[in-house]
């Protein structure tokens, strides 16, 4: 890789319950600027823990994590989080705040002037393809799951971060919405030149959206690389994960007549 990594994990470890549970075990992983990385694994694989370590929602026990070349332990965690976008599972919107207030929260915390926040909110609503007039003053409970997640993405982007971390962002959505939202986000990633790390348990989603995929199991990083590189991996678990999308693709080819619905 020619450019230096924007995010780097080096021999990172994290245990819970006084060392009984090793959630993350000696993981080293680098993400370069502009890259879209998906971390794939089952529940309990340690993928979410790894993501939270990056913006210090959790502190690592061992190893080093650097962002933009600086060790995160040296950084003020509050300021660190304000410059990293974070998209939570099923939105994580504040239920007592309107859509506009949710989106504008990080700029507000950073002390941005109210008119500037308002303009930024409008810009972001457009970016995530939500109708401004219709959604700006709605409360989160009045939105559909897909709309909520669009607001979650808008909120993560509000302070113009270079890095976006996403924790199973599209997991709870129906397939159509999920597909549309995934494509939209990938387009935003390219357009804004983001560096994205996305957690998912769905290998198909990872293959379709990400440049590179890291596979985790029981706290360990099993393999990483482009989908093609993963196919060449000899690991049995990685092979098993790849078999499902492949089989689905083959069956879809058989079941759906080509060139039918374009």
């Amino acid at each position, binding site marked *: 890789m020619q450019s230096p990594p924007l995010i780097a994990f080096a021999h990172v470890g994290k245990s819970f319950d006084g060392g009984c549970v090793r959630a993350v075990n000696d993981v080293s992983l680098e993400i370069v600027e502009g890259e879209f990385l998906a971390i794939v694994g089952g529940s309990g694989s340690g993928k979410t823990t790894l993501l939270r370590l990056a*913006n210090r*929602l959790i502190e690592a026990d061992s190893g080093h994590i650097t962002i933009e070349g600086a060790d995160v332990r040296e950084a003020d965690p509050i300021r660190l*989080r*304000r410059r990293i976008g*974070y998209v939570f599972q099923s939105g*994580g919107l504040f239920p*007592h705040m309107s859509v506009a207030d949710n989106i504008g*929260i990080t700029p507000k*915390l950073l002390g941005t002037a109210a008119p500037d926040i308002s303009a930024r909110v409008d810009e972001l609503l457009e970016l995530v393809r939500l109708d401004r007039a219709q959604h700006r003053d709605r409360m989160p409970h009045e939105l559909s799951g897909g709309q909520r997640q669009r607001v979650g993405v808008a909120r993560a982007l509000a302070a113009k971060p270079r890095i976006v971390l996403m924790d199973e962002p599209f997991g709870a959505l129906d397939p159509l919405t999920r597909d549309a939202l995934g494509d939209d986000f990938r387009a935003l990633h390219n357009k804004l030149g983001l560096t994205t790390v996305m957690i998912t348990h769905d290998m198909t989603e990872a293959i379709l959206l990400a440049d590179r995929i890291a596979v985790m199991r029981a706290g360990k990083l099993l393999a990483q690389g482009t989908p093609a590189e993963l196919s060449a991996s000899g690991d049995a678990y990685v092979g098993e994960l790849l078999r499902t999308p492949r089989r689905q693709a083959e069956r879809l080819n058989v079941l759906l007549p080509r060139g039918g619905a374009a």
Partner: protein
Amino acid sequence: MSLFSDPRWHEVLTHLPDYLGNHVRVSVTALALGLLVSLPLAIASRNRPLLRGALLGLASIVQTVPGLALLALFYPLLLALAALTLSWFGFGFSAFGFLPAVLALALYSMLPVLRNTITGLRGIDPAILEAAQGVGMTPRQSLFTVELPLALPVMMAGIRTAAVWVIGTATLSTPIGQTSLGNYIFAGLQTQNWVFVLFGCAAAALLALAVDQLLALIETGVSGRSRARIALGGIGIAALVAATLAPAMTRSPSNYIVGAKTFAEQYVLSALMAQRLRAAGLTASTREGLGSNVIYDALVTGDIDVYVDYSGTLWANQFHHSDIKPREELLAELKTILAQRKVTLLGELGFANAYALVMPRTRAEALGIHSISDLAGHAHDMSIAADYEFFSRPEWAGIQKAYGLAFRAQRQMQPDFMYAAVASGEVDIIAGYTSDGLIAKYDLVVLDDDRHAIPPYDAIVLLSPKRADDQALRAALTPLLGKIDIASMREANLRAAGNDANSSPAAVARWLWEKVGK
């Protein structure tokens, strides 16, 4: 309508600004203090299980203490504290009335506020808390912009509960000298004035409902983001406080405060003394319904200026003497003891209100019982009733010892009800009061204390240390000394126990003055 032409309604309404105003003041102050202490404690303890457990446990224990006892406990506590600050720092404070009431009620309000605030804060979805952290909030920003707003509905429910409790319990602050709507209830119960009792209860209930609804308005305003509702509720509470403060500002402070204990005779005598003071051109007000543990201390510290006590009560209860002396000797010795404490024994009113064992005349005659000695043989299958304090007073131990009395059962009753109870055969004997008019009314007989086990209880007028040399006060009250004989006092008490227009303490006091003063 005859119901509303009753002059008692007029009397009820003349007291309302004073009673209601004081009630609101003490309740609002206590609630504000309770919130000021509970909210930070609840917030600080939400993530500290040990502190949280200790706080909730302590608040629950406080809640199990009956309101009346909690209020009464604060009086001696503060009295001791005031003495301490006086000797250490050279200043004291009044442990009477407002302060102990506010502290006890504030303590009482803490449980619902603590519990609901903690429950509300801990009930927030952890995903929301993580999101607050994730978007870059400091713990403080998370608390104020996310956690407290989300917990608010549960917190407000607790605050409303606390408000209703405090307003209800504040009626019990009358015996420790805080004027409240409880004055209606205590006075009404003692003088069998049901108009007063009902009015006091209804007024306290309405006040509680009104405050509860205003808080509800603020609550829905906050959750519905409606500024108008919040403002309306806030203005309502502010107006309530302002309205009750206004009369307190304009009212001239009265020069003399006449104290009264919690029974009808005391209400009549305090009204009589206040009338005499006013007739002499002085300003006077009464502070009624004071507990007998509170009233003497209130006189010594100058919170009240004058009241009537009974020689035997002071001798046995206040100064803890167990020996019984002849009347004159006891009075003389009491005078010396009081003088050492700078309290002036102005003189005797002329009657004694002693404890006495009382039973129906017909039954006494049938059994051939004339004295307590005669009773001793029958006591083992008889029951006795007395007021709330008699059985723990030293006189009772003295009577039991002198006569070897052992009853089948002992019951405690509201004093006004025990005469009817003994007349109807509900109990066999009661420890009544010799000056009570109900003895004649129910055709009861007072048993002779042939072994002189019951001390004399002459009614005596006491002046506070700061009024010791007050000639105007002495001149106004001296005409009462030696004038009130037992027959007149009995009749006055009987009148005060009536349930009609002429039975208010003030009316009975005027009648008594007409009878004895001329």
